[in-house]
């Protein structure tokens, strides 16, 4: 961490970062306020995309592409499939708002206030210079397969356990031999 330069003449990077942040927040608000379920899922794509953009600006290119692949590519598609394959209402529906709306808004605002205060307070004067290529796939790969190899392997075990669990809980059509 070095001394922070003045923010009065922001660099292009900083401006892009702020704009992407604004897009992410705005799209996130639309996710929870829109009255159409499919639109909510699509606004989620915008939110995740803007976040991926933020990561790119911060030179974390690998994380950015993973964000696009996993969140936009897999999770939102899963959500859309969930909407299509079930009898969820497609189109404008009036009963999407729950009665807990004010309480939920209050909790969300309070949580956001706490988090923003903590982060602003914690990093007020912190400034980390960005190094191009610091988050490249090569660097992350060598770190994962060198420093973090044991937790990495344990994670694959976790996935295997989760898979078996899903099979145990859901498949009734498996009839074993014998």
């Amino acid at each position: 961490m070095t001394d922070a330069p003045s923010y009065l003449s922001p660099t292009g990077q900083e401006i892009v970062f702020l704009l992407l942040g604004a897009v992410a927040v705005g799209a996130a608000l639309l996710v929870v306020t829109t009255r159409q379920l499919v639109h909510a899922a699509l606004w989620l794509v915008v939110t995740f995309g803007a976040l991926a953009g933020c990561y790119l600006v911060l030179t974390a290119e690998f994380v950015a592409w993973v964000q696009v692949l996993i969140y936009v590519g897999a999770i939102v598609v899963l959500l859309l499939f969930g909407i299509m394959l079930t009898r969820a209402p497609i189109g404008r529906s009036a009963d999407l708002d729950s009665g807990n709306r004010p309480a939920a808004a209050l909790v969300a605002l309070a949580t956001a206030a706490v988090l923003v205060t903590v982060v602003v307070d914690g990093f007020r004067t912190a400034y980390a210079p960005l190094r191009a290529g610091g988050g490249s796939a090569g660097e992350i790969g060598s770190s994962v397969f060198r420093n973090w190899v044991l937790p990495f392997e344990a994670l694959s075990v976790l996935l295997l356990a989760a898979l078996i669990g899903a099979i145990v809980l859901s498949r009734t059509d498996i009839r074993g031999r014998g």
Partner: protein
Amino acid sequence: MNGTIQAPTIEYALLSPMLIVFGAAIIGVLIEAFAPRYLRKSIHMPLTLLALLGAFATTILGAANGLPTSASAMGAVAVDGPALFVWGIILILAFVSVLLINDDEQFVAQAAAVPGSSDEEEAVRSGYAQTEVYPLLLFAVGGMLLFSSANDLLAMFVGLEVMSLPLYLLCGLARRRRLLSQEASVKYFLLGAFSSAFFLYGMALVYGYTGTVSLRGIGDALGAGSGQETLLLIGTAMLGVGLLFKIGAAPFQAWKPDVYQGAPTAVTALMASTVLVAAFGAVLRVFWVALGGLEWNWQPVMWGIAILTMVVGAILAITQTDIKRMLAYSSVAHAGFLLTGVIATGAAAQNAKALSAILFYLAAYGFTTVGAFAVVTMVRDAGGEAGHLSRWAGLGKRSPFLAGVFAFFLLAFAGIPLTSGFFGKYAVFAAAVSGGAVPLVVVGVVSSAIAAFFYVRVIVLMFFNDPAADGPSIAVPTVGTSAVVALAAAATVVLGVFPQPVLDLADQAASALFIR
């Protein structure tokens, strides 16, 4: 960075207990895939037991070869004295619990069949068994080994998840009262996911302050002391929430009775003993190694939590009418007694004393718990286990031996002299007194007395009440179940009458403290 990665150094010999357990779990998955159904259980059982025994043997070998002085596996895991001791306890207790699991009456025939449906009837009639429990159990045990010995927060989180996920599943596989079991499983999963999220967020904030996730690095950064403390304090609190949830300390104890009651009793025995051991290993690492420099900040909070945990556990246990729920609250109270040891820090000698006390307590408590739950599996009604306390009335007249063994376990929980519980409590409270936490010990002794009240109440119920005419039957125990009860009773007696060897072992394991 021209496509070359230096190979990491992995201390395979030191890590072999963990690797054996994970390897056996993966072989277990292959057995599920390729072995015919009627053979599966007879392959799984010896494989699981052998794996746990083998892992235990390599743990002892590792300890005999002298302790390493630095972390293993590129700093992800610290195989030090306390870690090896904790591994040993976890592996023995898991071994004993597996003996208990070897009982078809406990697990559901087919988990995916809707309770009460014709699918379920057919599955029961065809004699299906969900033999996946064995590999899942091994996955959970492997996760515990990683969780309790992790040397950085990331590895610890991975261990936490590998431990928890199979347990969430195992909780929902009870054969009787399946809806209760599934409810327990979902509750455990949701609350556990919340606590994991807290842990992760705390990790992120602590990383924000210190710039590292390695426990040693965090400790060093605290010494350097720079930046905004808010991040660090909130991060510490959130890490604490995640870890204390796994222990079941007071404000976060709500899941324990429900989950212990709903889960198949063999799984409850496993959870009540090994998870507590593993979680205390992790708590000690985070609060002593990483946040040791911050003890002026976390100690007062921990005082409050320890007091609350002891009192809440002891008082709520009195109001319970279900034997498994009562044992769950008793486990909450015991977590509180153990927390008094976590608080008793000071100079190195004091830390070693407290650590050795905690290790001994964990060993003593784990065995007694598995034994008590093994007895619970044997007292049966038409619809499964007889959970309600009123059904236990007069058990001493119908089956004096079983009731006697159970009474003995209860006395050990209460900490009566000549049982293992006495020396465990004595050691922890003595460490707390020399650590200057006298008021805490007073609360501990008082809540021990309250706890003793309900243990004795059950004993009175069993021996001095008349048995109901249609009282529960005592299942003829399988070889496994009787072995579990015998082993647990033997351990409780030996640790209570002749605790010196284990105390010495715990002292030895604790003497070098955690490697940093």
